[in-house]
């Protein structure tokens, strides 16, 4: 194996494994587990190696098929995509231990289909962050979409309906994105992002280019569930089999935000976005602020933990979109850092939910009474995740919020600052409600020696790791920002 | 120089599209959609995209229509809009 192909293997190994899982996993769950964990472990290690390498040597341009850049399809490994690659593979690895358990329980006998789709979904996400080609991005977008349509529809009850909604919305998003690409292609004749970035300034930003940008962005916003285009997400993620939510919730929206950053700064330029369209810029920050608040408020109305978390995701999307559109480097740093932190927080919370669902069969608030007694370890980790969501120092969530708010202050977008603060407060309400129900709702004469009903180790270990990671990342966010995130920002920012 | 065949095909395509989404009978809508696909395929052939036309003929007008029909026969033909 030559080292220059390493990031390719990161993506290709899960893809290949998917087919083997489908072929050989029919009879035995052990085979599925070994293959899934094995391939994802390989990806995680390799992606970390890639990250280390990229931080050293800088941007690596890789062309599939060995055709030079604008002609072949270019894969770009720069610090930003390397960070995302590592994030995806590590999170997928952590999630899949739990997924294996919960799929074994929820979808017995269909593991080989589930995990084939699951692995392709993950490798599709990796493909999304690697690609440097506008059209290839569309294809990868559809890969992740189709796999998630299928995975979500595997759930029971209303899941197919949610999935169908997602199909329609997802297709609208993808079509809009493709339209944007079509407009760009008509104007420039190229699809390669780096090439586009070179050509676009020469043709000037006319109506077609602005339309292209608009449609690409709207397409991605639909995919990332940016308010008010979020309608599909809460149902899709909460009704899906728990194993799907485990990987989709932490990764899908965040990867789409990465794509937005990629398109905004590596295809178009900051000048084009923020100076020529200053009105749109502040409009979007306003929209993000509204998104944050409405996401949080809608979360308040939920009576099911999983559903509540999905609305929080909608709010978090607002954080990041707003951070990116603040048009200063602090905000962007915050947004990128928040991509990392938010995926970990969401992972942590969803892993806890998965453990709860595994043991209790559901996550409605009524079921959670006294859960701290039954599952103390799970809930301790959940609490860490919750604190991170609220933004309590020294958990990771605090520090990305720090940068985001600071960015808002610097840019003078007070509405965004207020929205962030307000949403932190609402998050506090949301999570302390859970803690109160889980801990303090108990009849008087109980002395707290109920039977422990902890989830299996395979579900707890990743949960604890992710909870610990939240604190470790929080404490090391200074070096993290200095040595990785700063490098990952677009040049000139 | 509006070529008449182009214009004719294009207007037929638009008519088919409108018909396909407005017909109350889903089976009919699907068939009209098949016609739409086929007209598309002709349009592309006139534009020199033979491969795409071929693909659309097999996939769009062929398999896709069959899949639609298969699904509709297992559900319902009626549609309120």
């Amino acid at each position, binding site marked *: 194996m030559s080292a220059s192909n390493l990031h390719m293997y990161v993506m290709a190994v899960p893809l290949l494994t998917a087919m083997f899982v489908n072929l050989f996993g029919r009879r035995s769950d052990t085979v599925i587990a070994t293959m899934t964990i094995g391939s994802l472990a390989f990806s995680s290690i390799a992606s970390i190696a890639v990250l280390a390498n990229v931080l050293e040597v800088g941007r690596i341009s890789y062309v599939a098929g060995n055709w030079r850049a604008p002609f072949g399809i270019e894969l770009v490994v720069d610090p930003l995509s390397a960070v995302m690659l590592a994030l995806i593979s590590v999170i997928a690895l952590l999630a899949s231990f739990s997924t294996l358990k919960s799929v074994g329980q929820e979808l017995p006998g269909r593991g080989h289909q589930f995990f084939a789709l699951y692995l392709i979904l993950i490798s599709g996400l990796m493909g999304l962050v690697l690609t440097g080609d506008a059209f290839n991005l569309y294809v990868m977008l559809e890969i992740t979409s189709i796999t998630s349509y299928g995975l979500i529809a595997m759930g029971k009850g209303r899941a197919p309906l949610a999935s169908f909604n997602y199909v329609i919305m997802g297709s609208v998003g993808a079509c809009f994105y493709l339209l944007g690409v079509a407009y760009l292609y008509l104007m420039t004749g190229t699809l390669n992002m780096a090439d586009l970035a070179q050509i676009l300034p020469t043709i000037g930003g006319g109506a077609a280019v602005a339309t292209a940008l608009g449609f690409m962005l709207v397409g991605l916003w639909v995919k990332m569930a940016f308010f008010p285009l979020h309608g599909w997400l809460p149902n899709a993620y909460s009704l899906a089999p728990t194993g799907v939510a485990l990987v989709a919730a932490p990764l899908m929206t965040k990867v789409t935000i990465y794509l937005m950053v990629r398109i905004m700064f590596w295809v178009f330029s900051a000048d084009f976005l923020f100076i020529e369209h200053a009105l749109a810029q502040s409009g979007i920050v306003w929209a993000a602020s509204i998104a944050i608040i409405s996401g949080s408020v809608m979360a308040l109305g939920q009576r099911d933990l999983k559903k509540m978390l999905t609305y929080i995701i909608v709010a978090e999307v607002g954080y990041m979109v707003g951070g990116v559109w603040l048009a200063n480097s602090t905000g962007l740093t915050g947004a990128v850092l928040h991509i990392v932190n938010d995926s970990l927080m969401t992972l942590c919370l969803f892993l806890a939910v998965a453990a709860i669902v595994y043991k209790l069969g559901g996550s409605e608030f009524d079921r959670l009474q006294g859960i701290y007694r039954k599952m103390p370890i799970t809930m301790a980790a959940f609490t860490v995740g919750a604190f991170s969501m609220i933004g309590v120092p020294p958990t990771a969530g605090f520090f990305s919020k720090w940068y985001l708010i600071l960015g808002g202050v610097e840019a003078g977008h007070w509405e965004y600052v207020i929205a962030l603060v307000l949403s932190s407060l609402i998050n506090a309400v949301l999570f302390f409600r859970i803690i109160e129900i889980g801990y303090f709702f*108990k009849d008087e004469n109980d002395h707290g020696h109920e039977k422990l009903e902890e989830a299996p180790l395979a579900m707890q270990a990743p949960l604890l790791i992710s909870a610990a990671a939240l604190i470790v990342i929080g404490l090391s966010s200074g070096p993290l920002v200095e040595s990785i995130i700063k490098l990952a920002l677009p040049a000139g920012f | 120089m509006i070529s008449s065949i182009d214009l004719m095909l294009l207007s037929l395509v638009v008519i088919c599209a409108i018909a396909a989404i407005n017909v109350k009978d889903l089976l009919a809508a699907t068939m009209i959609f098949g016609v739409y696909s086929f007209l598309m395929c002709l349009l592309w052939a006139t534009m020199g995209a033979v491969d795409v036309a071929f693909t659309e003929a097999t996939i769009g007008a062929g398999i896709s229509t069959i899949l639609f029909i298969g699904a509709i026969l297992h559900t319902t033909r009626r549609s309120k809009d």
Partner: protein
Amino acid sequence: MSIQTSIWPLLAVLVSLLGAIPIMLSDRTPNLRESWTLLAALIKVAIVISLLPHVLNGGGWEFVIAEVVPGVPLVLRVDAMGMFFALVASILWFFTSLYSIGYMRTLNEHAQTRYFASFAVAISATLGVAFAGNLLTMYLFYELLSLSTYPLVTHEQNAESRKSGRKYLTYILGTSIGLALPAMLIVYSLTGNLDFQVGGVMAESGASPELLALLLVLFLFGFAKSGVMPFHGWLPAAMVAPTPVSSFLHGVAVVKAGAFSILRIIFHILGPEQLQQANLGWIVCTVAATTILVASLVALTQDNLKRRLAYSTIGQLSYMVLGAGMLTAVGMTGGLLHIAMHAFGKITLFFCAGAIYVAAGKKYISQMDGLGRRMPITYLAFFLGSLSIIGMPPLGGFISKWNLAIGAVESGQLILLLVILISSLLNAFYFFPIVYRGFFLPAAEGEPEGIKEAPLFCLVPLSITALCSLALFFWPSVFYRLAQLALGL
């Protein structure tokens, strides 16, 4: 001033945090569990005292935990002001631990493990607030303190305590996230630095008076643990907690952390000089004076002993804020000193309230007629404590109030002097009847016989703290010196 790098500050903070782990593990063996608590408390006091001499000589200790934001590491720095608070907190924690054991065992409370563990985390956070080297670190520990005291407030797990817990969190988290955090970020974006410096980091920022005023207001209300009105509502509500919690919350850790934070901000972030120039002291003084008077009046009307003490606390806390708001050296010294003086006094009072509850099962003042004759030691301690709070010599409270009064005169705001005097009078009005009823009124009809003093574990701590209050009048030099150092005098 020589700052030495040392891991001891970290250990001082961590000792009780780490102690929480064996406490949780020895769930089934109460004796072992409580030995851990006491051991951690002892070690903590020892470490803090061992750090003291160097600080008294004008030095300091420092430990960088992590570099989290450019220019703002998580850092512990033991300076005079932090030492001042840490000394009070760690000593009183030891007594509270002793007292808790007696209280909890006698009442056979549930979930004692959670109680002791949360307590340990809370004192860790308190010490963290004291030793924090910059605003971010302080904010971190402040939040940790809020969160770790939440289970203590909700300890009873009934509807009322859950409601109080919610109220507590709403006020505390709401203000700290909603007001203090943005203010902190504004300071950071202006200066790129959040270090505590004598004279304040805002000195060079060139901020306009309006902005300074905004920041001052945000910070003043942002640290709602100090109980300034209108964000005081959580304090009486939090009285549903067991008495050791109330005593610790109201005597030492939580409320003092709030007042301490505000003092820190005024002394070392905004800077008295800047505030003086911008003429903003009146904001603080107005808020504090209003709180003092209103809280004292409300305290008069309370029949529940703990609630009366709570309102008294609200009033007393504002003395500290008032001292800082005077922006004169003496006044600020007085404010700082009042942290210690009030702590010893108020904890005694709460201990007594708890002891009465443990021994006689009584919560309401109107039921306590004649109780003093059966529980003389408790009532004597209560008397001493209340004298200290009122500010009568020869008790510690006198010293801080004297300083405050002088400060008021110096700053030329005689109205503040009036406020202090009226409030002291009111203090006397709401404390003396309790003592009077206890000693001189006959017990009510049908009173069960056999009420006697609370168990030794309760009685000893409250006697000691009462005596400490007395001693502080005669030997206040350590605290006085620390306060002077903290203000750079």
